[in-house]
């Protein structure tokens, strides 16, 4: 077993990148593949995402409109395109995408009424659902704020239990990207009701487009077990936390050091442990 120390933790929160996940593109590119249409993929992926034994999304069945997205960033961009750059709001400590283009977060108590909110859950900084979540829901209810949830990190989470039945939650999205699948960003959006926007145009107006992307998405979900990260790395994660006196979180690639609030990356260490074990 490889020796490790806290020096192996990283500031950046790298995902798991083991030979199995990084080998998938090679398999895809070098073997003959089957075509998958949008409908087939949507049903299969819907089942795949819902098959997690580790996390619970209560009232998921209220979101009957399911559309293919090109990763959660496409989902975000679809909302932004519909409401405009100044027509939506985010909270502090959000996905870096917004900050790169100058969007700053609004503290939850200062959220503007009647302006949609995009929020990522679990939040990478807390490595959990935001602590103010329940209060945030009340504020959104009082101020008529629609909530759209970016569940990008849920794919590699464990122990998240969230009720999406709150009426202000209008849509949410998940993707495969956190399983080292950035090379083929694909996922699903679930909405209470479908409206005209970029995602709808892509999947309902253009229809069977992106067949390469979608066929590859189908290839991926038939090879990656839904709870792959925690199933294969959960024990290792717990052992490292115990050995290095770290605080485990709900994200497989994130730990916290006792007395410090900053999340630290453990993804590279876990990946290297896998490599070492295979050697």
């Amino acid at each position, binding site marked *: 077993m490889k020796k490790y120390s806290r020096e192996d933790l990283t500031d950046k929160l790298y995902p798991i990148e083991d030979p199995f996940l990084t080998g998938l593109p090679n398999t895809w590119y070098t073997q003959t593949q089957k075509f998958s249409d*949008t*409908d087939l993929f*949507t*049903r299969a992926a*819907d089942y795949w995402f819902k098959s997690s034994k580790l996390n619970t999304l209560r009232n998921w069945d209220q979101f*009957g*409109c*399911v*559309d293919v997205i090109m990763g959660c960033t496409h989902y975000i961009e679809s909302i932004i395109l*519909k*409401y405009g750059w100044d027509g939506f709001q985010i909270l502090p400590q959000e996905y870096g995408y917004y900050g790169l283009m100058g969007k700053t977060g609004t503290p939850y108590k200062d959220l503007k009424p009647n302006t949609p909110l995009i929020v990522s859950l679990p939040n990478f900084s807390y490595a959990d659902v935001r602590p103010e979540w329940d209060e945030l829901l009340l504020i959104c209810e009082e101020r008529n704020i629609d909530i759209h949830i970016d569940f990008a990190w849920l794919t590699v989470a464990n122990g998240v239990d969230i009720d999406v039945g709150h009426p202000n939650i209008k849509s949410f999205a998940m993707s495969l990207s956190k399983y080292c699948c950035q090379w083929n960003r694909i996922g699903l959006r679930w909405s209470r*009701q*479908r*409206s*005209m926007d970029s995602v*709808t145009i892509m*999947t*309902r*107006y*253009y*229809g069977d487009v992106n067949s390469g992307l979608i066929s590859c998405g189908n290839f991926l979900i038939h090879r990656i077990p839904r709870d792959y990260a925690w199933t294969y790395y959960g024990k290792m994660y717990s052992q490292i936390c115990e050995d290095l006196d770290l605080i485990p979180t709900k994200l497989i690639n994130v730990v916290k050091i006792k007395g410090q609030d900053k999340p630290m990356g453990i993804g590279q260490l876990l990946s290297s442990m896998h490599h070492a074990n295979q050697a």
Partner: protein
Amino acid sequence: MITNQNSEEIKFEIYLTSEYYEKPPHAQIFLNESLKFSNEITDNKKLITFTEKLNFDNKYSLRIIRSNTDEKNYNINGKIVNQCLYIDKIVIDNINCEWLLYENSYAITDFPESYIKYQEETGQTYSKKAYNRTLIFNTEWHFNFTSPFYIFIMKCMGGGIY
């Protein structure tokens, strides 16, 4: 796809502007037979909003009944119009419907006798039912659509998967 919905909640935003000399135009807004607004329009860019549950596959008509003008309010020969109501913008489900209005809206104008007489005397034609969003006379304006609204839009574009 995987939907078992049969209705949707849709927000309507109607922007009206009035111009008048003495008395303002009056507007009533209906969705089918349901009255959503009734008042004089005294502002520029007056915004009227409401949210309605629409049943899938049903037909809907957004109607604006513009009234409160009469023969005294305009002078045809001198081309002076003392009262007008403009339909500036219609936003449905956060979609600006500007491009949909030309094909799917019409106005039925209640032309006054003096106007009709003047048009006939001068050999000009006029149409009682036409595309029009500058409502000088008492008018009933219609915008017809179906639910789901996003499918209505796709149909107007001539494509989509229903």
